[in-house]
């Protein structure tokens, strides 16, 4: 972490730091990975050795679930996930991109069967697009819409 980040993004005592996000996908990551009860800090267009325009999210007192990690991997496979305890990094790694994202996202095609009948969605992902295995349409990663199971 460089000095500029230290100045602009608050450190967290416990929780998760998602670093090296593409700047353009940082706000989408916030939308997909946090809810109204989470306390988080974000930084966008920060400079690092490998990326002059990275994004960072620090979520207080939260560890990403397997499902959330898959969502992050779908969105930003080259990001790093740091688990923080008492201000120290206790683990660090890239999220593993799933071969197929099952039930994670909603298809953007209104006429897809998955939006009209009780069918679990399946998407194939690459760094640019997500491809619906049912309607066979591809959409840019920026248009990922999370499937929020109803309570």
């Amino acid at each position, binding site marked *: 972490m460089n000095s500029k980040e230290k100045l602009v993004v608050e450190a967290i005592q416990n929780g998760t730091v998602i670093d090296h996000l593409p700047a353009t996908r940082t706000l989408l990551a916030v939308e997909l990975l946090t809810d109204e009860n989470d306390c988080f800090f974000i930084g966008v267009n920060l400079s690092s050795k490998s990326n002059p325009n990275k994004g960072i999210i620090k979520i207080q007192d939260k560890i990403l679930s397997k499902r959330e990690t898959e969502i992050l991997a779908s969105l930003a496979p080259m990001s790093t996930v740091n688990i923080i305890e008492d201000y120290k990094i206790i683990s660090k790694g890239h999220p593993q991109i799933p071969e197929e994202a099952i039930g994670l996202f909603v298809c953007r095609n209104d*006429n*897809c*069967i*998955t939006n009209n009948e*009780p069918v679990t969605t399946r998407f194939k992902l690459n760094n640019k697009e997500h491809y619906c295995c049912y309607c066979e*349409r591809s959409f840019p990663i920026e248009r990922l819409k999370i499937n929020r199971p109803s309570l």
Partner: protein
Amino acid sequence: MSCLSGVRNIISINDFTRDQIIEVLKLSAQMENNRDDCLKNKCLATLFFEPSTRTRLSFEASMMQLGGSTLGFADAMVSSAKKGETLYDTIKVITQYVDIIVIRHNLEGAARVAAEASTVPVINGGDGANQHPTQTFIDLYTISKTHSELLEGKKLKIALMGDLRYGRTIHSLLIALSFFNVEFKFISPPSLRLAETYQDFLKSKNIKFDISESLDDDINSIDVLYVTRIQEERFPDPVEFSRVKGSYKITASLLSNVKKGFKILHPLPRVFEIDRSVDELEATAFFEQAGNGIPVRKALLHLLLNNHEL
């Protein structure tokens, strides 16, 4: 072992390899005059949640020519879907009554869901704007009959004209033809131009193509002109539709200077795109194309029912 031995359903042309496509075309040729009873005691369910003429009737005729029988419906309003039954449940029930299912549905991905629910083979007879794979096999089979060069690896120039943005037959045909030595010309109004995704796909396969708004003077370099319907509902402005409509009409006089062996295809129904004056020309192949639905669909029924028994 045939390269088709693992094929259990016909859902999307994207599920097929080049070798498998060629094998289907060969099987179709063998089925041209085949009326044996190889599907005796087999029953086909034709589940047409959306209207169809050629697809449903040619499937039924194909099944009957091979000694099988059919049952089904041609209107979603007479099925349990009207009562709110899910497609999954409908298929779970019907799969116990028959040996094979063909389904047409307005929702994209419906045939894939049907295949997941079914214990018998499923054929996609069209799912919304997504896929119509048996039509693609028919189109390819027709081209392979009129232009044997297709399977010999010689280059063909194929022009696709009409609604290139939303037309499902266009996208499936483009993908299938990309396995062969072809060059494309895409002719459409700007609002119905081929989507960038497909243009990128062709670039990634180094397939040459050009985009035009009219069937201009290089018609004499084209081997096959594949025409599709331009639907009025795609145009918010009726005046714009009327203007476009006239520019995409093929007449006999327009075809006075075509290449030897040139053919016009159309998946039908045609509305205004091809004038009746074209019907008697040697170039006309769209009625023959519709007729090719029989050998191709016989081949697919035979293939799936045999594979299912392995």
